[in-house]
């Protein structure tokens, strides 16, 4: 458990499934909640409970819950870096409310993931994805030093329109703590 000034970060548990379900909002697509075919998924609470307790999923990248000072879960994060022949990790940063991306909670959560990626796992870079509607997330990532790798056009169809998906990267060498 990491006690920060603005939040507490701890390994997510099956009982956190109802809070995680709030991230999978059908009216608000997020790159982090798409499957490998870039399709939005609407898991049930039971499925999420299973996911959070699954040892194989934890090996690929454990989910962490982010709590505020009152103990309420405000979001989740994850660093996916499973395969041995890759030297990067994919960061998932999912706050239930976008406004939290502008607070100290997001900064502390990112610092936690960054330390995990560059200091513990010795990864070469962190990759993050965002849809064209996730403007708050993009602003946050750029503020943290991420640079755009480009935009995949019209990858997701939902809510009656096409969505673009941007990939951004932060290299260990770019970062002062690395």
């Amino acid at each position, binding site marked *: 458990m990491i006690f920060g000034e603005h939040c507490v970060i701890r390994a997510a548990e099956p009982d956190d499934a109802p809070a995680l379900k709030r991230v999978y909002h059908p009216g608000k697509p997020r790159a982090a909640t798409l499957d*490998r*075919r870039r*399709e939005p998924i609407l898991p049930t609470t039971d499925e999420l409970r299973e996911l959070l307790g699954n040892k194989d999923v934890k090996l690929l990248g454990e989910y962490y819950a982010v709590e505020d000072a009152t103990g309420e879960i405000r979001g989740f994060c994850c660093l996916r870096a499973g395969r041995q*022949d*890759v030297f990067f990790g994919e960061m998932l940063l999912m706050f239930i409310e976008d406004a939290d991306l502008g607070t100290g909670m997001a900064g502390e959560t990112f610092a936690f993931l960054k330390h995990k990626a560059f200091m513990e796992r010795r990864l070469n870079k962190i990759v993050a994805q965002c849809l064209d509607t996730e403007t708050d997330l993009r602003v946050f990532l750029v503020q943290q030093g991420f640079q755009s790798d480009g*935009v*995949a056009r*019209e*990858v997701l169809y939902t809510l009656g329109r096409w969505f673009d998906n941007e990939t951004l990267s932060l*290299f260990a060498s770019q970062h002062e703590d690395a």
Partner: protein
Amino acid sequence: MALRSNIFIRRAEREDLDTVVEWMEDPDFQLFLYGDVTRSQRQIREQIVGLLGRAPGHTMPAAFQLILDSETDGPVGLVLLQNVSWRNRACSLDVYVGQKNLRKGIVIGLAFYRIMEYCFDELNLHRVSAYIYSFNSPSWRIMERSNAKRELTLKDHVVRNGQLHDMYGYGLLKREFDELRENLTGRMEGKSLIEMIDALHAKEEEAGA
């Protein structure tokens, strides 16, 4: 001048297994496509065995395995349309050509054209994606000549032979392929996917007669 090729595309059969496994043992297969060092040959073989000839015709499969075949040379390559999303009308594309002398030629360009016709005209897809390593210039040049856009440049993304390499992400939308088709009007006469199918049927009927 019309472009000529005797390459055709067909579904992969279980009988193709030995050929596909042979290709997989080619170091280039590992270099250009699936270089996950943690996977054993046995695991890859099991995956291929599981894929070939599995999907019944009435289902909506998440992947298609096609063979590039030739009347004169036999099977020359493997086409994998993977992560097919029927919702997004999209898929990702991997192509492996076993015969090295065909990798850069017009033959593969035509085969690629037919694969795109299959994706857009038969499967009704909207977008085809391909991830290609930067050192695989013959492959990404074919994408660029096909009107695909290089959308992503993932720097230092993959390790091959102890070195980090960039990876390019390409996207080809149906409207972009249609533009290419318009530009090639005349040159592709007699070489489209539907004409290839007609020719194959005619040959089968001739053989059966």
